[in-house]
């Protein structure tokens, strides 16, 4: 959830930080999640030179980290206390599920206060269950209209080519990426690729919504695919076929189903007039031949 500059500034002002005003330019500071080191990182940048300082999750923000950051930014001695207070506010926000808090520019005022020139802030949308106060920001979803429509259902979509002819709806993030990679390598034009996440077995109405979203993109070919570990491929096929009666897909529908009860699913798809495959490569080749 991304906040606007104004919303960000309000958050800082509410915590006693000076906002805007005139002052000497110090640079930029941010706190981000360092996923590979499993910690937060305080990143300070002045004159194009960036320094990243890890914050140990067991100790929190220690004084030496603040001193190194202040030195890198050449914070005037009289502004040190104000600067440290500002960084502590950043860290408090990071501990309140902010993924990234960035202040650009940071200004040193003549009265010794450090002021916030601009704020960019993003909160972890997943953590909204413990932040009822975020309701005031509303539901802001990233991406295109089509991507947002799938996201509202609980799926994840990416729309690489608005002129593409193919929509691929698959079960699994890895398959979402693999299908896009392989179709792209075959020079096929993919309008949208969707990972259904946990939706495949949530019934006909959910599947109908997925098909309605896909149908709005008027695909020439729709690929539906997945490998099922639990014995449910036939249940999935049943939901797909029922949904297609309620919200019919235009163009060819190619399916690739593998795993538990896949033969039953393929027979159902064949009877419904789809083009079933039991091999992903064959299904993608069938999709790409009509690119």
């Amino acid at each position, binding site marked *: 959830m991304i906040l606007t500059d104004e919303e960000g500034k309000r958050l800082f002002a509410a915590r006693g930080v000076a906002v805007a005003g005139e002052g000497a330019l110090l640079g930029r500071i941010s706190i981000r999640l360092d996923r590979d080191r499993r910690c937060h990182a305080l990143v300070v940048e002045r004159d194009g030179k960036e320094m990243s300082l890890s914050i140990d999750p067991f100790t929190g923000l220690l004084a030496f980290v603040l001193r190194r950051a202040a030195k890198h930014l050449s914070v005037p001695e009289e502004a040190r206390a104000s600067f440290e207070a500002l960084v502590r506010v950043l860290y408090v926000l990071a501990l309140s*599920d902010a993924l990234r808090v960035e202040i650009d520019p940071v200004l040193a005022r003549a009265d010794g206060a450090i002021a916030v020139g601009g704020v960019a802030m993003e909160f*972890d949308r*997943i*953590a909204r*269950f*413990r932040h009822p106060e975020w309701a005031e920001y509303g539901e802001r979803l990233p991406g295109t209209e089509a*991507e947002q429509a799938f996201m509202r259902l609980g799926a994840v979509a990416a729309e690489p080519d608005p002129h593409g002819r193919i929509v691929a709806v698959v079960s699994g*993030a890895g398959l979402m990426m693999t299908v896009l990679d392989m179709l792209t390598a075959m020079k096929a034009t993919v309008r949208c690729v969707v990972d259904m996440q946990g939706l495949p077995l949530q019934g006909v109405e959910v599947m109908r919504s997925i098909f309605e979203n896909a149908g709005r993109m008027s695909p020439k070919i729709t690929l539906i695919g997945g490998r099922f*570990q639990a014995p449910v491929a036939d249940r999935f096929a049943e939901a797909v076929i029922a949904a297609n009666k309620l919200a019919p897909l235009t163009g060819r529908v190619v399916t690739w189903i593998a795993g*538990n009860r896949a033969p039953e699913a393929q027979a159902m798809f064949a009877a419904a007039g789809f083009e079933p495959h039991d091999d992903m490569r064959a299904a993608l080749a069938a999709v790409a031949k009509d690119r």
Partner: protein
Amino acid sequence: MAILTGPETRVIVQGITGNVGSGFARRLAASGSTVVGGVTPGRGGRQVDGLPVFDSCHEAVTATGADTSFMCVPAPFAFDACHEAVDAGIKLVVLYIENIPFLDALRMTAYARARGTVVLGPNSAGCVTPGRVNLSELDPKFLLKGNIGVVAKSGAMCAESANYLREEGLGVTTIVSIGGDPVLGAYHRDILERFEADPETKGVVMVGEIGGRSEYDAAPFVKTMTKPVVAVIIGGSSPPDRQMGHLGARLGAEEENAPAKRAALAAAGAHLGDNVTEVGRLMRRALGG
């Protein structure tokens, strides 16, 4: 041998009284794992399919000797549940749960590492050693037992890798899904080190994806390995600034993208495939078959 689990592994399911937890308790036990009970705070004393339910991990460990947890609690409770498991002495935690806040994942994985507990996930499909222990969503009936280790973030890529290995007559020792979230308990290198040390494993398939540095950081270790590594990086065609299913799969800095990861792994001597359908053929060739 295999890795992470053995015949002595004793499993509890945290969140066993929920639909997902009870379903997994049945599935894991049915596929040969020694499931000794489960934990749901406030439900101690009950039974699920004949398995005892405990109020806490400490009670479960004391009563059953459990050393492994398959965790299915709702995401808001995962932070507490994972810390409790580690504190109780559990040595392997599979975080099957998705949608755990990044801040929680950061803290619980750091805590687990400091205490010597291996965490797979969040958003991990688990790990499975066919014929011995299943701590995953994969159905072992589709897996061929053999000598190849598999490590991937994605559960789907674990299953696909096993499928394309099987096409070449190659089976697996252990399959490990490390999870698709940005902050993980174990990264590729952690698992590669275990496969390298495992005498039963003769080669490793590693499937990586865009986002994070896990694959890039694994490359120096790949260079030192005595066993062939077949590597695939997925997501290279992804549009910029899009989350590709996994929360962690998003194009970022240069070393987080597919070309840099492929280049680093190629320079380290890995056998690179363009996509997962090639892993069996490449491994067969790497093994000299």
